[in-house]
């Protein structure tokens, strides 16, 4: 059964159309990756799910239509969003950043904080450090942690590996796999790093110029001629 269903999603920035009738489904307990180049509309797609853009079309999450809802209500329903790592609160410490994520899940603060610190022990060591002074990898961990503090059923992660060292990318992948396997968390990531996405996800959508161009399992897409030529350069 699909936890998230998007039908004919369209987003405009002024007169420019960013998403053209995007439709996709995310099954409960799955990891789904949206891959595509810069400017394809990946971040816009995630922003639209959380209600940060004006959009038309239908977005149904766990049986609830999100189309007319705004971000605070949507987050309350159980969607956690980890935007690109620049979107932290730079003059706040790690713990303060995490607690902002718990604004709508106050009863589970201690449990969620423990879970985040177990997942990323480095954050516990640096709990009072201002995030503007952290490395890119740590900032990504804070971003993920903040999204997890809202006790989500669905985690949206925007470009988790952007600008990170390969070693850190592996850590992030391990954490996401762990969340999916241990807690059954459904995860949607957007990625330009196609290898990373294909190794992590069970289902992959290729988004280009605001349209879904291809979809399939990683194994299917790995042999797709267009993907091989465009993204693997072979």
């Amino acid at each position: 059964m699909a936890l998230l269903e998007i039908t004919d999603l369209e987003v405009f920035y002024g007169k420019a159309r960013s998403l053209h009738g995007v439709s996709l489904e995310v099954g409960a307990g799955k990891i789904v990756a949206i891959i595509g180049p810069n400017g394809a509309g990946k971040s816009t797609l995630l922003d639209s799910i959380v209600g940060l853009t004006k959009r038309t079309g239908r977005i149904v999450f766990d049986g609830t239509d999100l189309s007319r809802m705004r971000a605070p209500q949507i987050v309350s329903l159980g969607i956690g969003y980890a935007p690109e790592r620049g979107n932290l609160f730079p003059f706040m410490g790690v713990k303060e950043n995490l607690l902002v994520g718990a604004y709508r899940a106050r009863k589970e603060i201690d449990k969620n904080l423990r879970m985040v610190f177990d997942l990323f022990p480095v954050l516990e060591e640096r709990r009072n450090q201002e995030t503007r002074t952290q490395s890119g990898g740590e900032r990504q961990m804070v971003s993920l942690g903040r999204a997890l503090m809202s006790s989500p059923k669905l985690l949206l992660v925007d470009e988790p590996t952007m600008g990170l060292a390969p070693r850190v990318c592996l850590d992030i992948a391990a954490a996401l796999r762990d969340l999916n396997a241990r807690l059954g968390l459904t995860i949607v990531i957007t990625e330009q790093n196609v290898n990373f996405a294909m190794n992590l996800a069970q289902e992959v959508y290729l988004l280009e110029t605001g349209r879904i161009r291809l979809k399939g399992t990683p194994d299917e897409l790995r042999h797709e001629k267009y993907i091989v030529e465009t993204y693997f350069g072979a």
Partner: protein
Amino acid sequence: MGVLVSLRWWLVFGVGMCLLPLVVSTGTLRILVFAQFLAIFAMSWDILSGRTGYISFGHPFLIGIAGYTTAMLTYHLGVPLYFSIPAAVVATMIGSIFFFIPALRTRGTYFAVVTLAFMEVLYHLMQVVQPKLTGGTRGLSGLPTIILGAVPNYYLSFGVMFVIGVGLWLLIRTRLGTALSTIRMDEDAARSSGLNTTKLKLFAFMLSAFVAGIGGALYTHYLGSIAPRGIFDISFLFSILIAALIGGAGTIVGPIMGAYFLTLLLEFLRPYLPGPERYLIYGAITLLAYYYAPKGFHNIFGLLWQRLGALGRRE
């Protein structure tokens, strides 16, 4: 525990200031009354602009609404102060909605310019529309005062400033205070974390107007008069902004420090620079503060305190 320790400092400050009339002249107390009113206005600016990052260049708009409301009620209708002052506060909070509406659609410089426009509009309205009611360019004078004398007015202004200061200082230490500062740092990230930034901003605007309303109404009755050129003067606006900025925006304690510093500095300079050229010093102070101490006195004192603590532990 940290809050309790810091509250002890508030207590020390409060007791010290209460004892001050025993050792300083009434002339100095009158200067301090102005510093305390400036601190109230700077805190009102700080809870809106310092916390949420929505920089207001039109704060005298709010202060003016409060001042004119209570002035007109008492002058024309003989309404007692215990009714006119709360009415002025309510009117200011309603007036702040005019500020809030552009904040739904504009940010940064655009918002600042819009608020400046509000101030200018009210300035001209008070002069030309119904001058019989507002007193026109001369304003209204002979307004009733709350209490007479330098010492009672000192205690009144200090008491109000102290209560507002402690209240706001405690508030910014709560989750609500943290949520307000997320708007300044990254409003979109705050929304994506599930924070209702519209409600939070409305709360900040209302609270700021509440404080400006109290300050504006009391200030008007302390002066016993109100005139558009006084309340909507650009140097009055700059005093508020600079007090908050050099003290340390977003900290509540900083604007109090800045207000005392600025008022006392200008008085100190009076014999040397008797004319309006004294206000040139504003620009110089702002530049120096931004260059050498962008986080304000609050931060400087904090760092000094930490170093003293470290030295003490080493010995």
